[in-house]
């Protein structure tokens, strides 16, 4: 057998490998160019008290989760228990209530529990665009300096929290400020 007879087999195996890997990735997840960059500047009214402004200053000092949510988003309801659990562990979570009705949002936090240290209220969704948000829920992990280190698109799952988010938060907590 000549070596060139093996070429189609090698090509086939390469294609199988490429397609196999493609099956494993979620095509709805778009990689964010913001990873490794400081969180985009923003200044928004607080959901709880519109007279109070929430800005980037709230995102430094300790590792922080920024969770983009809305009462209209089914996935947000699904992950809410996970956020409450993270808050109980002492994780600082800042919410970004995205393109939502403020009254409904406040009622939601009363009904389901409030895991957020602060909630910024983005009525028009323009801050969401600055953060590259394309579908709630989305969760960003920020380090002590307010640099985005990880982004999760879709509801947080127990696997994602235990396998990625908590270990990363631990690592970030040990980083020099």
């Amino acid at each position, binding site marked *: 057998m000549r070596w060139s007879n093996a070429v189609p087999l090698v090509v086939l195996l390469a294609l199988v490998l490429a397609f196999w890997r493609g099956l494993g990735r979620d095509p*709805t997840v778009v990689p964010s*160019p*913001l990873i490794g960059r400081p969180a985009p500047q923003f200044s928004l009214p607080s959901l709880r008290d519109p007279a109070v402004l929430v800005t980037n200053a709230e995102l430094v000092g300790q590792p922080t989760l920024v969770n983009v949510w*809305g009462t*209209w988003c089914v996935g947000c309801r699904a992950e809410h228990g996970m956020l409450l659990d993270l808050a109980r562990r002492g994780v600082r979570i800042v919410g970004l209530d995205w393109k939502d*009705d403020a009254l409904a949002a406040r009622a939601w936090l009363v009904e389901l529990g409030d895991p957020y240290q602060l909630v910024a209220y983005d009525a028009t969704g323009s801050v969401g665009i600055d953060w590259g948000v394309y*579908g709630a829920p989305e969760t960003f992990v920020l380090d002590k300096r307010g640099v985005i280190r990880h982004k999760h698109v879709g509801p947080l799952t127990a696997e994602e929290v235990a396998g990625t988010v908590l270990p990363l938060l631990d690592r970030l907590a040990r980083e020099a400020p």
Partner: protein
Amino acid sequence: MSRTILAALVLMVAALAPVAAAEERSPIDNRFDASFDDPKLAARYEALNRELRCLVCQNQSIADSHAPLATDLRRQVHDMLERGATDAEIVGFMTARYGDYVMYRPPFSALTLLLWLGPFLLLGIAGALWWRAVQRRAALPDEPELP
């Protein structure tokens, strides 16, 4: 035989059909009036919208999509054009937030080299194989006539 092939094709098409995602809608509707006084701006607006991918419904440009995010992005394009931004500035704004993925024509880079040159590479390989086969056949002696 041909029936088997047909069945296989039907299955393949079914598997490739996009799964209609249940669309969740925000109550905030940023609908706006994309009218321009300057027809040149309107033309650039249309052209830019066709170049930008809707990230929620990934096989549509934001010009075609009715997703709320597409509306928001169109409004962003509109507002930037009205403020006098160049096309490059608008595309830069989008890629800074959503990555090269937001562009239907990704830029030529080390990462996209295979994407851009792959088809020509395959054409070249196929051409070379065809040429070799033709040469080899020409080199064969004529087959003797069988009695």
